């Protein structure tokens, strides 16, 4: 009898197959490809605790005598390529690759902090003393811009990797009295705390510059930022990093950006993850950010205007309204973005020496794109309106030296600040100055809210929509007049 055993088993399998196969064939299948954004999120390796390693390395050393470069040299003993890698990044060079500048007859320039100004603290060049509290290099000097950048030992590993007990002081150096050995013992992969220390405080304080990056993102709520709040993302989950090369570039400080260098939603999400066909039709013209970031600065207010012309007076300081050293400000919270066509690059970036028309607002930067540009999508921006000094003789924006004992913040003497700049960065000063209005656009791409909060049709379309269709180049609301072809 045992001989026939396999046959009836086969029969059983056959019968079950006859029943199961059609069931599987008819089983309802999800019509759409499964969107699994988690698949692309980097896995974080467990970090080796450096406590004992550092302790052993500096066993006999008095912490008070240790300098930043000492720590860096110690790091390089085990991570020999680290400094070399860092020194190739824009975090180190503070400038992008060379690009052709159309409004300067195709001259090739690498745009960076030394040749551009903004409408916040105006110029980093010449103000190394203070501005380098964020730069990742040690041993900056006032006059010899970037001389320190050639020494690998000047790479500040701790500013990104120390998880506790570290802060920068003047000229890029650690704050006096910092126990660098203890700080080095705490190293790990950078979290929101390290990136945020500089990027949340750009422009000289919490939330000043970006609007979509501020200290509320250290520990954000779900509704504030779904990635960091609900899913506890760290910056490097999207700003994917290999060999210290961090993906993602800020258009405000660059001119042309290769999309491959930019962080995008589609790193993890489908290009059109919407079930709703009507929403899907928007994908060619509307950036994800436009609907999914209905407002920025949702928790902490951000600066939307800065008027330098009123500075220097004793009007009583108020962080959100007026400071003697900086002038008057307007801060806003939960701000509805300004919407422009944007193809990822700039059409114009003000470079030091560019001549302006002081009767018009000057664009510090102007996002590139228009309704005719198939690469462009409607994108949210924070508009920062400045009123800043310009040379009434030469008609260009001035770059006052503000920090240091001779700087404007100490002397409140504009002339002196401009003369000092002439010396340090070589920007000639005619001797007369005025104030002019400047506009700077900041792309809004963080503070992505949960999908429930995304904009709905009537937020943009219809009687009370937030879009200015005519300004965007449409004949009227595209809901009625049709979209671009």
């Amino acid at each position, binding site marked *: *009898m045992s001989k*026939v055993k396999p046959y*009836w088993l086969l*029969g*059983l399998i*056959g*019968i*079950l197959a*006859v*029943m199961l196969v*059609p*069931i599987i064939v*008819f*089983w*309802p299948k999800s*019509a759409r490809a499964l969107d699994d954004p988690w698949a692309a999120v980097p896995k974080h390796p467990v970090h080796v605790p450096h406590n004992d390693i550092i302790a052993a390395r500096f066993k006999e050393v008095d912490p008070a005598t240790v300098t930043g470069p000492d720590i860096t040299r110690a790091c390089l003993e085990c991570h020999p390529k680290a400094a070399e890698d860092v020194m190739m990044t824009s975090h180190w060079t503070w400038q992008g690759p060379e690009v052709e500048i159309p409004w300067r007859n195709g001259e090739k320039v690498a745009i960076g902090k030394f040749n551009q100004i903004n409408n916040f603290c105006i110029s980093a060049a010449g103000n190394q003393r203070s501005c380098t509290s964020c730069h990742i290099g040690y041993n900056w000097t006032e006059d010899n811009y970037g001389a320190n950048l050639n020494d690998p030992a000047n790479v500040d590993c701790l500013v990104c990797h120390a998880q506790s007990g570290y802060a920068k002081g003047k000229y890029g150096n650690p704050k006096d009295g910092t126990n660098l050995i203890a700080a080095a013992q705490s190293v790990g992969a950078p979290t929101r705390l390290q990136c945020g220390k500089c990027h949340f405080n750009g422009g000289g304080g919490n939330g000043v510059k970006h609007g979509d990056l501020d200290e509320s993102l250290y520990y954000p709520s779900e509704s504030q930022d779904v990635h960091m709040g609900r899913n506890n993302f760290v910056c490097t989950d999207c700003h994917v990093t290999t060999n210290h090369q961090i993906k993602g570039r800020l258009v405000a400080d660059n001119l042309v950006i290769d999309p491959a260098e930019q962080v995008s939603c589609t790193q993890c999400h489908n290009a059109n993850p919407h079930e*709703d066909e*009507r929403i899907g039709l928007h994908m060619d013209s509307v950036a994800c950010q436009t609907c999914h970031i209905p407002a920025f600065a949702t928790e902490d207010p951000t600066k*939307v*205007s800065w008027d330098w012309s009123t500075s220097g007076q004793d009007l009583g300081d108020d962080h959100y309204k007026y400071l003697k050293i900086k002038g008057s400000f*307007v801060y*806003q919270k939960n701000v509805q973005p*300004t919407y422009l066509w944007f193809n990822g690059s700039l059409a114009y970036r003000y470079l030091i020496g560019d001549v302006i028309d002081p009767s018009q*607002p000057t664009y510090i930067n102007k996002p590139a794109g228009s309704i005719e540009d198939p690469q462009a999508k409607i994108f949210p921006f924070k*508009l920062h*309106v400045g009123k800043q000094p310009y040379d009434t003789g030469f008609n260009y924006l001035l770059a006052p030296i503000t920090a240091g004992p001779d700087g404007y913040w100490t002397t409140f003497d504009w002339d002196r600040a401009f003369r000092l700049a002439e010396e340090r960065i070589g920007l000639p000063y005619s001797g007369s100055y005025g104030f002019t*209005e400047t*506009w700077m656009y900041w792309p809004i791409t963080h503070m992505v809210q949960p999908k*429930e*909060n995304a904009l*709905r*049709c*009537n*937020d943009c*379309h*219809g*009687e*009370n929509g937030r879009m*200015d269709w*005519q*300004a965007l180049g449409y004949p009227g609301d595209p*809901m009625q007049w049709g979209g671009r072809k």
Partner: protein
Amino acid sequence: MKTTVFHRKTLLVTGLALLALTALALGVSQALAHRPAVATPQISPLHPPFALLDSEGQNVLQSGRAISTMQTCGQCHDTAFIESHSFHADLGLKTGGGLYGKWDPLTYRYLSQPGDKRLDLSTAEWLMINGARIPGGGPATTSRSGQPLSEIAPNPTNPEAAILNSATGQPEGWDWSKSGVMEMNCFLCHLPQPNLSARAEEIRAGRFGQANTATLLGTGWVERTPSGFAYNPAAFGADGKLKAEFVRIQDPTNENCAACHGEVHVSNPEPLLVSACDLNYHQTATTGQVFAGQKISLSGVNLQGKQNLNRAWDIHAERGLQCTDCHYSLNNPAHALSFSAPGHLAYDPRKLEIGEYLLRPDHNFARGQSAQFTVAPSLKGTMRRCESCHNAVSTHSDWLPYTSQHMSVLACESCHIPQMYAPAIQSYDWTVISIEGSPTRLCRGLTGDDTVNNLVTGYQPVLMQRTNIDGQKLLAPYNLVTTFYWVYDSANGPRPVREIDLKAAYLSNGQYASEIVAAFDTDKNGQIDPAELRTDTIEKQAAVAARLEALGLENPRIEGQIQPYSINHNVAGKGHAIRECTTCHHENSRVTAPLQLTTYTPAGVMPQFVGDTNVNLTGEIVSGENGALFYQPVTIKDGVYVFGRDRVPWVDWFGALAFVGTLFGVAGHGTLRYLSWLKRPKHQPVLKSVYMYEAYERFWHWLQTFSILFLLLSGLVIHRPDMFGAFSFPHMVLIHNVLAAILILNFLFALFWHVTTGEVRQYIPNFLKPVGIINDMVVQIKFYTIGIFKGEPHPFEKRREKKLNPLQQFTYFGLLTVLLPLQMLSGALMWGVQQWPQIASWFGGLPFLAPLHSLIAWLLGAFIVGHVYLTTTGATPLEAMRAMVTGWEEVESEHHHS
């Protein structure tokens, strides 16, 4: 009531203005000032400047008289055509069934008919009360006999030229030539911001002739003066026409429609507020419908669980639709559907030119077929409905099993308006009145009485079957509003007791009359508490009736009615519609969820459904505690059989009994067999091996076994999803359908095999010898009841060419020719109901087929029990079973014939 509403709106506007001012003062907008300026859309780029004319056709700048819309707009548009083609103007004057003449127990006052002894609502007072919510024209200018109202002389006995003096209770004449009449007000819908409150003020004061002019306050055309109105010369050019910048004529917006119909919210960022059950927002009050694109979670309504309601109040409002997109002018060339286009034309280009349309735009607007609006019945179903824009079958067929069956039973609204998030009126009890003279009002979907601040819970509308114009019968959501009131017999027929008489019966000098207190104050504390203010006893009823009789009213008695209100707005998009099968396919099905009608019943009077609706009243009114009444839908009476909810109890009882009975039977038989076997001397029968079943026979048998087994199990889940919640209902339906198909195919293949091989003969008893059959069966029965316990051998030898004993032969014959085919057929018909509902209906439809299918399923279950047990009666208990696996069976080689 109206004043409080405008008060609320005024407050809101003032508050916002103040906020805006404060913001400006703080300089918050400083930075924004640099943004590109938003262009103000020109409201009426096309409408030319025009002169304002009075009713004599004179320019109002010269005459200074009230504006006449018929004359002013009539300069270019055919206003006579417009008024005569507008049920909004007619309101039932000519066609009947409208706001003019159809009694509404919510607003209560009854429009008196000629000859009515007691004047209730005269035309003038009707206009004063309702005028703010009607556009004018129709009954506001014309008498019932077609005469201009202005030509009717004051006459206290003519309800069209009289008014009831509320102080004396006596009718007095009404002078239309003094009050003026109210022409159809074009500006009400064609101005962006008609002055509704100024207009309402004129109407309520009876200055009907001024109402249309008051509407223009705020446009800059006209200003209020102590004596009336004065035209603003600055708004007019030298030619006496309005300057172009003052012309702000536009297509009606949602806000214009909202002025009369209900809560509509267009200013998106500002949180929406709802004043519960406020009849000034009639549609919202009676149903809870709110037409707004704002997310419910962002609205200002104090709504339970609001934070999770990330959906718009109405998906169409969110997606930018206007009221007029569906309720369009019937001859608007941009919208009108060509009903008359012959079948061979996809598009009929012969339409009005836009100029022709603007001359004579039909102001009969496309309408639905709601239960509550009975005006202009000939236009029912003319509007764009869901299916005019959506292809529902294609959007549902990828996930909804039996799509077309669902669509043929359910209106889209049933699933897409799952819940109302604003309160709605539940009942009005006019059998009692408060000291202020108002009835007892109850709101559903609201906790407590405060209609603005209390927690809103919303409510689930009741599903009732309605018969559409095209004859389709669909379940659709409704609110049911129940009202109770006193009626009396007048010479002209029964009439509701006049409000003035009701007050006279209850009140005396602003307090409850002593007889009323004596009857109503049941706890004898000297006053009538709210809980006591209800005619819930014969004594109370008698006390009021006596007071009404004393006023001269004949046969006063309480009646009650239930008015269904259709719910078609507040549509949820697909993410928020009902999608879960077990919402309906469950013991507690949404389809038959009851709706509370009242919390008590005045003197036990059963309210009656109003008769003029398209709703099929198949449900029951059931009583709850303390006289509360509920409407309980009985959808099975509508021919709607809901799997998982509907079942015939006796079928399940009988089936379960048969199944359990068989179980007990075989258990008893088996026990006895075992006991007798223990007592019996054992002797080894002589056995021989026979190749009993061929491979195909075994394959067929086991495939059938497994399919039936899983069919029974999945069928049980579909039948009682409430008991098997762990299983997915739609997946079980799928498995059931696939296995059923396999069963049928297997059956057909097997039939083919049996017929072609001749094996089929084994199943056919020899009907030519009926006596022989019976004798043989008796022998076999005797064996199973007696012989088997004695260890007797089987009476009929099981052979390759005769496997079945007479009893088996007979049973299997019945099984294979009756029971199984019947089950397959009934199942196939139930499955086919989605494609060929007609065929199923020939066989009694689902209400017959489904219980039959359940019954046979039970019997098959019972058969399997018996069948499996009988396989143990072979040479050894497992021998027959083994044979069906291997094909080889050991059978007794010797046998006896009796």
